[in-house]
């Protein structure tokens, strides 16, 4: 059976003056898969997400999300996607419940249904006890969880997660990974950027490795490890990106 492609990126490029942040990248994401976008800091991961979610305009190329072009149908696309940015950016002065209701209303969810969905999500994310607490009083892990809940409040088909576990302690990160796994089981398509390769190995069906705005490899983590003859995705990543000699040199220097 043919897989249904929900994200199709063709020649997507972003330049800031002379700097090419994303350089003619091409890839596809299938429905229901967790797709990892891996790369070191400054590789172009966030820039790509910003273009796919309408926060930034591509310099060249295009992407189709659910068959709609990001260049011409971004408002329609936004109705079907949820985005969790790298920074948990909900309103400090609103409670957890009010934040979710406000976000739902921006997406056109009627107020009664918005409240119901917000309460369900707060229960699912184990935040219901703190539903009336202001966002600013939450721990970093709770803020992250609520930001993900906010991205789900309009029941999107595709979820973009930009570095979801960055800055979280071990327990919060593990809890969040379980949440992502659950979302996948619910049939959501997840586009995930991370530089935690162990996390990508655990969660992702396929990964793309991005360095200096270019995709160097796209495959299942298992296949990448086999192709590079490495035991872990981290080692495979080092080999593919050409960072292995640098690491060896540092280790020899010890």
């Amino acid at each position: 059976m043919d897989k249904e492609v929900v994200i199709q990126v063709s020649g997507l490029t972003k330049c800031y003056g002379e700097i090419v942040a994303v350089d003619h990248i091409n890839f596809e994401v299938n429905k229901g898969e967790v797709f990892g976008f891996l790369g070191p800091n400054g590789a172009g991961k966030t820039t790509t997400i910003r273009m796919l979610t309408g926060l930034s305009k591509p310099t060249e190329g295009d992407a189709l999300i659910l068959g709609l072009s990001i260049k011409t149908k971004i408002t329609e696309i936004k109705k079907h996607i949820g985005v969790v940015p790298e920074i948990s950016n909900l309103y400090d002065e609103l409670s957890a419940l009010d934040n979710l209701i406000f976000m739902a209303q921006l997406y056109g969810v009627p107020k009664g249904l918005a409240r119901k969905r917000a309460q369900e999500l707060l229960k699912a994310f184990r935040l219901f006890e703190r539903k009336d607490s202001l966002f600013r009083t939450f721990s970093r892990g709770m803020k992250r969880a609520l930001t993900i809940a906010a991205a789900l409040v309009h029941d999107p088909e595709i979820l973009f997660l930009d570095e979801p576990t960055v800055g979280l302690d071990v327990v919060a990160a593990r809890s969040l990974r379980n949440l992502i796994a659950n979302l996948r089981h619910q049939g959501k398509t997840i586009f995930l950027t991370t530089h935690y390769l162990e996390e990508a190995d655990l969660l992702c069906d396929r990964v793309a490795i991005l360095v200096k705005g270019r995709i160097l490899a796209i495959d299942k983590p298992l296949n990448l490890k086999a192709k590079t003859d490495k035991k872990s995705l981290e080692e495979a990543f080092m080999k593919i990106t050409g960072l292995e000699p640098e690491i060896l040199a540092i280790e020899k220097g010890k």
Partner: protein
Amino acid sequence: MWRDNLRGIFNIALKDIKTYYLKPPAVSWGIVFPITWILAFYLRHPGDFKELVPGMIGLTILFSTTAAEAVVLNFELRLGTLERLLLAPIGVAAVLLGKVLGGVIFGLLMTTIITTLSVIVLGLHPNIFYLILIILSSLFVFSSLGAFLCVIVKEVFEAQTLLNLPRFLMIFLSGVVYPVSKMPLVLRYFSYLLPLTYTIDGLRRSFSTDLNKMVLLDFIILIIFFILSVLPAIKLLSRKFE
């Protein structure tokens, strides 16, 4: 599309009122400052207080709309919450207009309190239609002016500093306490470039017994000021997300 944007504008405005405006600093800036200013002037130059009512209402409009408007956009840009709004299926223009509407609604609340109290306590008989016309158009002008000044700078404090210049120029040169007609010719011409001049003139005419149609000219000029503030503000905000 337009329904999505209208819904966005309305929800953003309500959220802003809750998170920024109905707070002690905004209320005091929007209502206490204009009353204090006018009372201070009255104590220095006692006379007919009724003459100062249009100035007091004008200052309430100016300060209540710009109390938070001049900082919220930069504040949200810095926190990343503005990006969160732009992830929703609404345009940049809707986000900015939502912010402007938040300032307008809060300003309307403050202005209604001041105007109603003035009318009742002093026994004034304004032309309600013209009064509403001038107040509403002025609220949109100063709220969008706050938004415009906010998007042309990068830092929150820069916006407040930048806004204080036109604010204080307008207090002295727009006829709030000193009639424009008695100013030297050069200052008089300069005052015609300031939107508050038309607010004060429109308000004076609305409270005047010999009402004339010039109030409609004030209204039209205020609408032009609104367009001249809001369109560049939308353009500049859009540029931040290219």
